[in-house]
């Protein structure tokens, strides 16, 4: 089983799912530094408009907002989740690797050029794309609309195309691996819930991304081949431009057909990883495994038919709006099942407050807060008031920013010993936790408050509008908290770098957990499980099974009569 491999094959163009997983995670961290720095520029511009006006023009602001959103959604959270999925799926189901290791390597090496294209686009004439991460036409379709609509937008589309291609290849691999490579005894109902999360997310991604591909192709054709799928005759800079009879709204429909399921592609695996972390620190099985899995399946189906709630203010037919409202509010039911099950998993727990557990607890808070705000945005009547305000910014940052990043941090602290065979520093971990979860949740809750007051979003200086001038007291505090949040990530990076080389050596099962990855050595060798694959005999979360028995029973332990 041991191969002599060169450096390139072992660490660069590796087929090993564990190496590819870590490559994805490192790439996500690099992109997070860029996207985080953009957020700091955005916040500085908002807090000190006079200084900001001298530093860069208003067009640059919207370009930074666009790239911050694009990079965070697709190149930080998505990539980090791809990394964790790559690392965890084979280990948790008892496989030696992915079903198609070559395809796996290819999918990573397709996303690297995607990242580079996105980064390069900052330095071309006109700067990076400036049509929002949603790339609505006509801003994204007419090359002369704003500076970022020129080459920057073309590169944005190219980067997204590469990303979608990579994501699809990765998704095909996750799906086939989960369905076909489970070890003996690992039935679907015995799978760790994280694997379920990745399964549902993958299926959603495979079905929801193609419409965005179609939209992107039509947009490219409008931009470069003079068609008029999305562009329409309009006044631009005081001049009449005959561009055809296209329908800009069509793009929004196609975009949000992906955009909404994408939320669940990101959030479901994160909630599931939190579920997976909890029992090791509560010493209790997770609450409601099956209802949670069924709820995720229901959420998966519903998430594909509610996209219109992102478009209430486009003047859609009120009956259509009413349908989208009702369907959206129905999602609340299965989603609440997940939230309540997370909370109930703490019932009668003997908690161990290690860093992964702290992050898991913060995720539960963020799920509650974020989900609550969603009710007001899913309801058409209140959304029409909130839509152009910071209420929306606060809401989606809580869900696809805070829930995802906090659970990814928790997952990294939790599985780090398995990745590198060493523990991360608890002391640094705690500092990192309080300086991350605290500011993060506070910032986005405060943004809800700003939104309630009517603070306009997407604007480089909201005080330009008289009705926003009374609403400026929170701007500076939010910016200062954002600076604390960003700078405290250096603790995390330092902890990672230090622990990889100098961390305390980790045992195979440092958290005393039950799932299969902890039965493999830390770090697992090539092929993961030595000569024979493990055989599964029981459910994934057998903690404190009863009086007089062991505190936890790994999945590989045979049942006794």
């Amino acid at each position: 089983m041991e191969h002599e491999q060169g450096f390139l094959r072992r660490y660069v163009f590796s087929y090993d799912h564990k190496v590819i997983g870590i490559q994805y995670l490192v790439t996500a961290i690099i992109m997070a530094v860029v996207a985080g720095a953009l957020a700091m520029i955005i916040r500085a511009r908002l807090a000190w408009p006079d200084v900001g006006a001298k530093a860069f023009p208003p067009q640059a602001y919207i370009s930074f907002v666009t790239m911050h959103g694009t990079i965070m959604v697709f190149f930080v959270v998505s990539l980090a989740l791809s990394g964790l999925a790559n690392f965890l799926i084979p280990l948790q189901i008892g496989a030696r690797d992915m079903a198609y290791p070559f395809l796996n390597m290819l999918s990573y090496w397709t996303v690297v050029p995607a990242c580079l294209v996105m980064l390069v686009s900052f330095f071309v004439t006109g700067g990076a794309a400036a049509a929002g991460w949603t790339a609505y036409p006509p801003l994204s379709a007419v090359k002369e609309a704003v500076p970022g609509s020129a080459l920057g937008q073309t590169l944005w589309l190219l980067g997204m195309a590469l990303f979608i291609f990579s994501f699809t290849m990765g998704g095909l691999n996750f799906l086939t691996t989960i369905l076909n490579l489970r070890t003996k005894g690992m039935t679907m109902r015995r799978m760790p819930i994280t694997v379920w999360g990745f399964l549902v997310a993958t299926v959603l991604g495979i079905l929801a991304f193609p419409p965005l591909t179609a939209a992107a192709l039509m947009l490219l054709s409008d931009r470069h081949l003079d068609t008029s799928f999305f562009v329409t005759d309009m006044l631009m800079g005081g001049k009449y431009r005959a561009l055809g009879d296209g329908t800009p709204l069509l793009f929004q429909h196609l975009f949000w057909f992906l955009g909404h399921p994408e939320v669940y592609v990101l959030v479901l695996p994160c909630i599931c990883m939190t579920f997976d972390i909890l029992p090791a620190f509560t010493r209790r099985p997770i609450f409601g495994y099956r209802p949670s899995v069924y709820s995720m399946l229901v959420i998966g189906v519903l998430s594909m038919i509610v996209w219109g709630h992102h478009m209430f203010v486009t003047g859609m037919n009120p009956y259509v709006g009413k349908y989208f409202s009702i369907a959206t509010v129905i999602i609340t039911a299965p989603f609440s099942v997940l939230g309540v099950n997370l909370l109930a998993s703490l019932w009668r727990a003997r908690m161990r407050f290690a860093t992964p557990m702290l992050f898991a607890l913060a995720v539960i808070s963020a799920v509650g807060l974020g989900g609550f705000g969603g009710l007001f945005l899913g309801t058409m009547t209140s959304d029409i008031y909130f839509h152009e305000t910071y209420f929306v910014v606060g809401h989606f940052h809580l869900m696809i920013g805070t829930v995802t990043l906090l659970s990814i941090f928790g997952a990294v602290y939790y599985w780090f010993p398995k990745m590198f065979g060493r523990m991360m520093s608890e002391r640094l971990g705690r500092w990192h936790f309080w300086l991350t979860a605290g500011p993060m949740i506070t910032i986005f809750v405060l943004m809800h408050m700003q939104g309630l007051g009517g603070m306009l979003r997407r604007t480089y200086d909201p005080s330009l509008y008289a009705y926003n001038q009374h609403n400026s007291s929170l701007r500076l505090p939010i910016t200062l908290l954002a600076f604390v949040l960003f700078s405290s990530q250096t603790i995390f990076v330092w902890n990672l770098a230090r622990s990889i080389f100098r961390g305390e050596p980790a045992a195979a099962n440092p958290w005393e957990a039950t799932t299969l990855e902890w039965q493999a050595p830390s770090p697992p060798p090539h092929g993961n499980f030595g000569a024979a694959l493990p055989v599964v005999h029981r459910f994934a979360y057998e903690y404190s099974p009863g009086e007089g028995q062991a505190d936890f029973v790994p999945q590989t332990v045979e049942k006794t009569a």
Partner: protein
Amino acid sequence: MTADAIPATVRAQSNRVLLVALVATVAMLFTAFAAAYMERAGARGWERMDLPSLLWFNTLVLSLSSAAAEIARRSRAVRWALPAAIALGILFLAGQGFAWAELRAQGVFLPTSPYASFFYLLTAIHGVHVAAALVALFVARTRAPILGLAVGFWHFMGIVWLYVLLILKVLG
């Protein structure tokens, strides 16, 4: 440990799952185009035009290619079947090219009308997928385990072509 360590039966099973997933994702792509087409057909300035009758000949070529590929899948003893399927597939792509040339000669280009835009775009995207499927068939000549996968996807390309024709000829 390489992929070869996976037992042949498991490998065949995951190839089937891979095929289903590939079909699902490509089907969603063309469904999205169909939705866009329907939406556009209901809006201002929609006008249909006659399509080259060469397309019917191309349809026949693609069906024959599918049949040949199926013969190859059922029996590896029929050695002419797979090369014939590939040759007919290339002929189909050439035929689509000639159909484009015919429209071009009539002065119909991509931006000429929304209908023409959809025609060129749909045939182009289908053509790209057909080309990829042809590469898969070509690779499958020497790699028996992926023959089922490649032929399955090839049949799906035929079905997508009928779907494209249905959209362009019947809907809107």
